[in-house]
């Protein structure tokens, strides 16, 4: 068999392979450079304009089949990031994607202007805006706000623009269509599901940030459904995210219609997961004598 081709092209950007690390699950890229140099792209933790110290502890809670997190977007702010974190990141042999979380269209605009730098390949727009007042996460921006954010982002930058959509309580297909209409290059599906963990002993939420986001294995069957459905209504590439633990999961995402995938929570229990998943994919392709990973994308027989 010829050489295995794992590369994936999204618009003008060529990724060496379809595996990205999901926002917030690989820190600021300061650890495990061996892993980060092998993935197709590294996505930063969510950045805001001003620094945020994040939510009080506990910030993570284990539930059956997954975890609920409520980090509260702890980050040093975009300007600090550019000055003190980005330089080290550019030494990694991988594409840098910055995840940004504005709480208004204006904040998104300013963030994008700050981050419209040659070192940065893409901007992942976190469209489930952090709700500073309530402490927890808001489940999603309204379709109208999403539209305004993507529209003005597109005006400012030519970078790979990938809105990250929150499913759960919103019309995901409509959001997908809107983002495509406003010129997004790809869609990340999905952010963690909004979630609440409470205690019948205290009558209070268990997490310091009150509400949180559900992630990890239990999400997979739902995310696969989302990918397949959104695939039917938009034609820009989909980046699958949610519940991937091994290479079979990742392959299923590609088969269901994703062009890239993100590994998230699994990094917490195994920081080498991205490498193991890529190795697994290679082995699978070799065994099946498939020379190019692109050949399995969107090949689900329904």
């Amino acid at each position: 068999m010829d050489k295995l081709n794992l590369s994936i092209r999204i618009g003008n950007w060529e990724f060496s392979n379809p595996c990205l690390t999901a926002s917030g699950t690989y820190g600021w890229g300061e650890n495990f450079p061996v892993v980060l140099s092998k993935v197709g792209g590294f996505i930063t933790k969510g950045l805001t304009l001003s620094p945020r110290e994040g939510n009080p502890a506990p910030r993570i809670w284990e539930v059956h089949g997954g975890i609920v997190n409520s980090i509260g977007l702890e980050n040093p702010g975009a300007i600090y990031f550019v000055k003190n974190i980005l330089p080290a990141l550019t030494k990694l042999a991988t594409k840098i994607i910055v995840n940004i979380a504005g709480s208004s269209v204006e904040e998104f605009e300013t963030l994008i202007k700050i981050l419209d730098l040659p070192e940065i390949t893409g901007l992942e727009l976190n469209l489930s805006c952090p709700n500073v007042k309530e402490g927890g996460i808001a489940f999603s921006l309204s379709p109208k706000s999403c539209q305004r954010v993507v529209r003005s982002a597109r005006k400012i930058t030519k970078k790979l623009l990938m809105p990250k959509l929150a499913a759960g309580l919103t019309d995901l297909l409509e959001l997908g269509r809107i983002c495509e209409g406003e010129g997004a290059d790809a869609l990340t599906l999905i952010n963690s599901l909004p979630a609440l963990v409470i205690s019948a002993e205290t009558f209070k939420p268990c997490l310091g940030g009150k509400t949180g986001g559900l992630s990890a294995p239990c999400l997979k069957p739902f995310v696969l459904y989302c990918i397949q459905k959104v695939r039917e209504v938009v034609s820009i590439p989909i980046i699958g995210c949610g519940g991937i633990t091994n290479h079979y999961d990742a392959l299923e995402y590609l088969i269901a219609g994703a062009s890239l995938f993100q590994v998230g929570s699994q990094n917490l229990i195994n920081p080498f997961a991205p490498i193991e998943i890529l190795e697994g994919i290679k082995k699978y392709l070799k065994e099946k004598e498939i020379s190019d990973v692109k050949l399995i994308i969107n090949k689900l027989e329904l």
Partner: protein
Amino acid sequence: MLYLESGRVVEKKILTPEIYSLYLDTTKIAKISRPGQFIAIRFPFLYDPYLRRPFAIADTDGTKIRIVFRVRGRGTLLLSQVVEDNFLSVLGPLGNPIPEITNEEVVLISGGIGIAPFFFLAKVLVQKNKVSLFFGAKTGAELIMLNEFSRLGMENLLLATENGEIGETGKITELVRKSKIPEKAIVFASGPMPMYQELRKVIPNKIYAFFEKRMGCGTGLCLSCVIRKKDGGYLHLCRDGPALDLDLVKE
């Protein structure tokens, strides 16, 4: 450096009905582990529990790692049910080792299961320092590993139990208060929060305290393990700890 190893359980001991000791065959991790560090364990093949559970490195001989733990929730309950020759997934060593200390007086103060990191600490520290251990627990049975500690050649081993079964009757902090801790002694403490609050009152020394927080990763990736700083903002226990200068912390 950090490894992910499949660790065979080579020995299991039931120290009390609620406290267990396991020796895990994890050669790579054991080789580079130093006192103060911890490992994170999960059950291979199971996705519920999903997260790793952090445990202090209680001892190592360079090939095996010992952990000592108390059953608290479902993770430690499951862990108490493993048997010899079972395999566990082990990530480590994690966190910072304690600093190199030479020719000093070192005082270790422990309450309950807080004793876990101290055997490894004491074993290494006695080589170049005068080491004393204050060890308190609710009952005599919970003063675990006493024989092993007494063979280390420490200066002092001071005990207290709340029910008076062994040593002084009362909390270990009471015994600390009554004893003369040299002003320039370096103090490590490991136990529950109330013990730290009390310690801060009874001795003026710098105290390095071992903290526990729910951890998502143990490797600095998730930013879960925050502990509030006195001067605002947060420390991250897995990156900045697990032992922290008590005066920096506001909890």
